[in-house]
């Protein structure tokens, strides 16, 4: 499948994957994240069930302290 991850096109072998799988494959190990699939907020408790499929727009934002 081809998805848009953080405004960049990316191709994965799998036809679909969960958010948890995406985070593992991309090695995103940060604790504080905001995840959206097609502009819909995905909460932490939904990471293992939310499905990403071909053509989806995915945002994974890593939150850091400072302000």
């Amino acid at each position: 499948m081809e998805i848009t991850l953080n405004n960049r096109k990316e191709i994965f072998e799998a036809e679909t994957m969960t958010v948890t799988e995406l985070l593992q494959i991309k090695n995103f190990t940060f604790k504080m994240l905001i995840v959206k699939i097609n502009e819909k907020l995905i909460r932490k408790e939904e990471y293992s069930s939310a499905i990403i499929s071909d053509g989806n727009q995915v945002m994974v934002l890593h939150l850091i302290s400072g302000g």
Partner: protein
Amino acid sequence: MTFAEIKAILASKTVGIAGAGGLGSNCASALVRTGIGKIIIADFDIIEESNLNRQFYFKTQIGMKKAIAIKENLLFINPDAQIENHDTFLTPENIPEIFNNCDVIVEAFDKADQKQMLIETVLSVWPEKPLVIGLGMAGFGNSNTLKMHQSGKLYICGDEHTEISEDLPPIAPRVGMVANMQANTVLEILLNKEID
């Protein structure tokens, strides 16, 4: 758009600011100078000496509640400004009530977990409301790493990379740059409606 038209539009708008620290106090100061119709700003904290290296407060205000002092300072800029201040700790329960009438919300917290709480709350309560966040502004120099990028109704200002640490303290110029970038993004949203 003429300056008069810009001012007329902004005078009819309300901006919510979550936090009155380095980002929030400076963003509010920029917005009040634009003649924005109303600012709703919330913070629970007290001004400490260490805040004065970047936050829009004065030495004589140490020990004051930020929510009180920020209103005082903004009214020094414009005594007619409409400032609604909340001396409160923002939570998923009170955010929907406090910021309900805002055209745009600015995230101006310090801690990553608080940023996450606010972003999740705003995205789930009002998926269509523009939210401008500050992300990554520690240290000094590297002006060109600071940028704004949009993801749906979420506008991200900063370098998205530098986290506050012993070697990367928050210092006035870069914090002020991101605070002003947030204020500038608010204007862009309010005056253009859509940007991309």
